[in-house]
């Protein structure tokens, strides 16, 4: 079937709820209204009110209760309506979800998924636009996933729900509906922790993920160089090997992310390239990122996140050395 990213989320939820009775979907407005983005559309009708639950407006309880449900043997898939509303529940991620396995020496685990739309560019209000994967990837024990295509979305979400550890699933909402592609009807997984080479090239590696993939590919197409694009897909744990192998081949690298630059995921990728491929580098690694500011409100948010010319500029810089 041809599906958008948000339809792929919906399809994955239908697929896994049908396959596994332990999967419970909940969050604010997910049941009766099918989610503000319709990601959970028709789940209530198909699976009933015990497994598809509209919760009170309680981010702390949504994430904390998901942890408890998971410890009890269920497979919770909780929705946080917008990424800017996860911070109240940050405590539950840090204090409980990510540490259950470690704390109990494996006696208890928290196989759960917290899904949320993230990123700027949809003209929403304050707290609706951030890309804070850096903050969440900093939590040991938590996996952080950010798909960029409908096909990967379904496969990664299925893998996330089945994963034995807690997963934060960050959905790039700006491209929720921007394109369709073939998404298999059947069940399949895209493994967590594996990056993919989205576009092959020999001159320069651009590492990117989630909402930044379309502008990255556009810049790669326009560049006067043979650009290889690595889609990280899982932010944590990171598949440094695919990145490093690509950089060893091309000798140049650019990292693109929407979140703020300082202390961000990009810095970590540069460090890994330095660790493993310094001697292969022919130019310093470039970073193209959001600014170290809050995401501006809607009138200026389009200035905030990287567009193809900014990425192209960095590619040219990397090529010029």
């Amino acid at each position: 079937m041809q599906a958008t990213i948000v339809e792929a989320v919906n399809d994955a939820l239908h697929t896994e709820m049908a396959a596994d009775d332990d999967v419970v979907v909940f969050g604010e407005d997910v049941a009766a209204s099918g989610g503000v983005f319709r990601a959970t559309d028709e789940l209530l009708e198909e699976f009933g009110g015990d497994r598809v639950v509209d919760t009170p407006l309680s981010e702390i309880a949504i994430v904390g209760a998901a942890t408890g449900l998971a410890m009890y043997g269920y497979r919770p898939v909780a929705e946080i309506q917008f990424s800017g509303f996860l911070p109240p529940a940050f405590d539950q991620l840090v204090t409980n979800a990510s540490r259950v396995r470690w704390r109990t020496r494996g006696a208890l685990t928290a196989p759960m998924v917290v899904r949320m739309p993230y990123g700027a560019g949809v003209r929403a209000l304050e707290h609706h636009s951030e890309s804070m994967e850096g903050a969440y990837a900093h939590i040991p024990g938590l996996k952080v996933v950010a798909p960029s295509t409908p096909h990967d979305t379904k496969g990664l979400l299925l893998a996330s729900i089945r994963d034995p550890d807690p997963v934060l699933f960050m959905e790039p909402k700006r491209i929720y509906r921007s394109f369709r592609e073939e998404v298999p009807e059947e069940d399949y997984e895209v493994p967590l922790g594996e990056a993919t080479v989205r576009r092959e090239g020999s001159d320069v590696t651009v590492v990117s993920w989630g909402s930044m993939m379309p502008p990255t590919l556009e810049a790669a197409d326009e560049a006067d160089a043979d650009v290889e694009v690595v889609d990280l897909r899982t932010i944590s744990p990171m598949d440094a090997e695919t990145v490093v192998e690509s950089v060893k081949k091309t000798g140049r690298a650019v990292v693109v992310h929407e979140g703020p630059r300082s202390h961000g995921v990009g810095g970590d990728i540069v460090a890994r390239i330095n660790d493993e491929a310094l001697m292969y580098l022919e130019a310093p690694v470039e970073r193209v990122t959001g600014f170290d500011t809050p995401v501006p409100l809607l009138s200026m948010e389009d200035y905030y996140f990287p567009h193809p010319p900014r990425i192209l500029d960095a590619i040219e810089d990397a090529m010029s050395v």
Partner: protein
Amino acid sequence: MSENVPTEHPANAAVSAGDPRFLSQDDLSVDTHQIVAPDGTYDAADVPDLDAEQFQDLYRWMLTDRVFSRRMVSIQRRGELGTFGSTRGQEASIIGSAYTLQPDDWLYVGRAWTPMFMRGVPMKDMILFWRGIEEGQQSFAEHNCQIAISIGSHLPLVAGLAWGMDLSGDDAIATAYLGDGATSTGAAHEAINFAGALGVPALFYCQNNQYAISLSADQQTAANTLAQKALAYGMDAIRVDGQDVLAVYDAVTEARERVRNGEPVFVESVTYRMDAHTTSDDPTRYRSDEEVVAWEAVDPLERYREFLESEGLWADIDHDGIVEEIEAEFDAALEEANAFAERGIEEIFAHVYAELPPELQRQFEEFSDLLERRPEMYDHIEQRPKG
């Protein structure tokens, strides 16, 4: 022997034998304060002590709220705003409460815009805010008011503001407006408890408009009322008919007096959100037309009009004339908002810190340089509603 003899502990002053007795919320009856009944009748002795001008003022502000909501929804439909949350149906709840507030009081709202106009915020700034232009909020702050987008996040802040008022001996209160949904957040509970424990002048004004986006109030909590939640924290509460502007005014006036004396109060105002949650919501997915019609029958403006008629005050009110004035005010505000000069990208970097750190300065310069070198950037920067 321990001094802590269990049966003598103050909490055990009354002990009971036999089967354990559960304390249930049904042991508690929570009345709803009302002055003008839905059929328009009232007891003259209960009517708040306001003069004719003030009674008319209340009507004018309620009408302002209604007209502003209507105009905002309509310009949103024309693509001139990102999104908007109408307050139609909540006019009595919003105006009756805000009318009690004094200029030095602080006001932090979830859904309530007109109280900010009542404090002197220009309509233009509210339009700018909903257009996603940060500048609007500067005048909000200058008039001691703010809007919280992260639900419930403002309650601890209001507790802190009130604490400051207490410490400095100022004769003012800090007020948080919140919704039924907000009462489920951790922040709300911590703040209400904190304000209660410290005894600071905070007023928590909860508009139970029956929905938090699609979730109805009875799915939001198993509690019979929201007012009673405050009792658990030792805070006094009052429940009021939010369709009755005089009852709201009366209740909040008294609440404000107590709060001023360092006894925080929680008010539940029972009202209804007539329009969609915001312009991006489709309420037909979760509520019935019959329900909406039933609430339309208790329209707060209608109920108040009946009161004004009984008091012989209606004849002096030129309803259509007032609407025209508000429309004209809105038109002027919209024009001013439209004339708001486009900002430069330095705005993105301003006000993050008191002083621009070198790294931010660098990011700003690099970006300015890029925009100059690559004007094709603007092909990717969408045209937004006019500033």
